[in-house]
């Protein structure tokens, strides 16, 4: 698909037009950074942050959603199907995370109809990261600051304008009226990509994790790694691929609704049986479960590591836990005893 060139005014006009026509969400300026908000015009958009505090997963898997309503006779009523939605300014790591979530929820065997309906209605216009944060580590996990996985269209800010790289037909349709990009634009984009990738110096060596992690299950090192963890769950809620949920009923003023809300494997109640028995009573066991899940369990389940290296769990952890160090330490720990 042909890359196109848009000057800044053209992009603004396109966004203004889209915001009139459909529901467009984009990062907007927040007290502490950026957050996703519905925009009325291009003027609302704020792309100066490396990323939003919350990932975009909520657009296909909301923090809280109505699964069913019950009529006065107790008959379940399904909610209305979701409307079209366009996300502008999603970063490549978050777009890839949506692709991973789709693999979880829209599997071969059983599909989650709520996530599927939302995923079908969403268009993703990504903006490549020319700058990265010290917590970014998408490289080495199959990502890149300029990756296109999961996107419909990728925009690269060139300084003088934008390079628009369509990924899907849906994305191509949005930019067909603009002139093709010049070779010079492509060259600039390539240069920016190399520059951004060079900024990411911490990497996770994933090649041997599949063997090392199962072997590390019983290691006492987990106690030490999880010592600071207060099991607050922020890493799971802000993780763009964490997908655990709870189902709960609520009756307010006679109206009964069955909700789905995000849940977290870091909570003690999460795994507690009705009998009171809890297979992951130890906080370190819960921390281990999250690390194992990201780097080993999901490889078995959907064929890939479900960490995209966005760095949110590192940045927002109140206890200063760094998942890169955890993985590193587990790797060296298993190496040690092999000798």
């Amino acid at each position, binding site marked *: 698909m042909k890359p196109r060139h848009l000057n800044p005014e053209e992009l603004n006009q396109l966004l203004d037009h889209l915001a009139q026509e459909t529901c467009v969400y984009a990062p907007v300026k927040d007290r502490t950074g950026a957050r996703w908000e519905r925009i009325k015009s291009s003027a609302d958009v704020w792309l100066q942050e490396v990323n939003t505090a919350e990932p975009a997963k909520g657009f296909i898997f909301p923090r809280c959603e109505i699964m069913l309503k019950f009529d006065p006779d107790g008959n379940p009523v399904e909610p209305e199907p979701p409307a079209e939605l366009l996300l502008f300014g999603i970063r490549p790591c978050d777009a890839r995370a949506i692709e991973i979530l789709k693999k979880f*929820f829209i*599997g071969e065997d*059983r599909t989650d*109809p709520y996530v599927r309906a939302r995923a079908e209605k969403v268009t993703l216009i990504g903006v490549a990261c020319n700058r990265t944060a010290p917590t970014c580590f998408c490289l080495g996990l199959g990502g890149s600051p300029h990756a296109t996985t999961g996107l419909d269209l990728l925009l690269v800010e060139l300084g003088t304008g934008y390079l628009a790289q369509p990924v899907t037909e849906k994305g191509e349709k949005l930019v067909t009226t603009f002139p093709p990009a010049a070779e010079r634009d492509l060259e600039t984009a390539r240069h920016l990509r190399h520059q951004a990738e060079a900024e990411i110096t911490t990497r996770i060596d994933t090649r041997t994790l599949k063997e090392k992690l199962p072997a590390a299950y019983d290691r006492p090192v987990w106690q030490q790694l999880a010592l600071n963890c207060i099991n607050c769950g922020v890493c799971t809620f802000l993780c763009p691929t964490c*997908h655990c*949920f709870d189902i*709960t009923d609520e009756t307010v003023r006679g109206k009964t609704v069955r909700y789905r809300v995000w849940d977290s494997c870091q909570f003690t109640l*999460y795994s507690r049986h009705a*009998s009171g028995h809890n*297979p992951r009573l130890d906080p370190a066991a819960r921390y281990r479960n999250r690390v194992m899940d990201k780097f080993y369990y999901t490889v078995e389940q959907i064929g890939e590591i479900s960490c995209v290296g966005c760095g949110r769990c590192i940045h927002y952890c109140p206890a200063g836990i760094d998942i890169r160090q955890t993985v590193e330490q587990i790797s060296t720990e298993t190496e040690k005893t092999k000798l």
Partner: protein
Amino acid sequence: MNPNPYLPLPMRIERVTIENDGRDLKTFDLAFINEADRAGFSFIPGQFAFLSIPGVGEAPFGIASAPHEPLLKFTVKRIGVFTTALHELEPGEVIGMRGPWGNSYPFDLMAGKDVVIISGGFSFTTLRATIAHLLHPENRRRYGRIIAIYGARSPGELLYKEEIRVWEQSPDLQLVLCVDRLNRATWPTREGLVPNVLKEVAPQSDNAIALVCGPPVMLKYTHPVLRELGFQPDQVFLSLENRMKCGIGKCGHCNIGPKYVCKDGPVFSYAQLLNLPPEY
């Protein structure tokens, strides 16, 4: 099949039976309200379903009836918010049901072999379904000897008493009932813990499959006995009951390593479990 796996189907409670002296175990026999739902529903013993009460919530329970039986049976212990609400319901009332979920006991593997069923406490439900299924005239000849050891704390805590009294007399299976304390009761006749009784009964392991379901402490002491009797890990199958919310491998709760109890289980071979973290 139901396109939305979270949508409960309406079921009418046909019968409620108090099962035990403690009066905290009730059996609910349910009938489909819509004929189309009934026609589209099929299951294999070992599978489970969620029961749903609007405004209260949902919880998963093993299906205690066999596929040929007209009513869908669930035996529920009153232990939390949902089960307390369920225990208050009476015949004629309507509840929701969604399922069946999970795999089943390995009936294909059991064909032509002896089947040894070991159960303790109120986990007997899906094994009751299994026995009823195996004893069905159309199925019985497909299997070898059927030996069932079923134990409870006291005689009053044994489930499905009328039925198991009949089964005790049946030539089609050897049913061994036992209780921790007889307390001067005349039935059943055997006092003892399930693992010890298993040792006494000593079913042979050649060409046999063992199905085990019970509280963790029973499982812990049953495995060594099975091992002594010569049962290999791939001849022993367990049904697990982790906390779960969705039943279709999405909500995350019931994972044991990379496996989900709801989707990959609830029945696992002991050989499988030896390769998984002990998180159940």
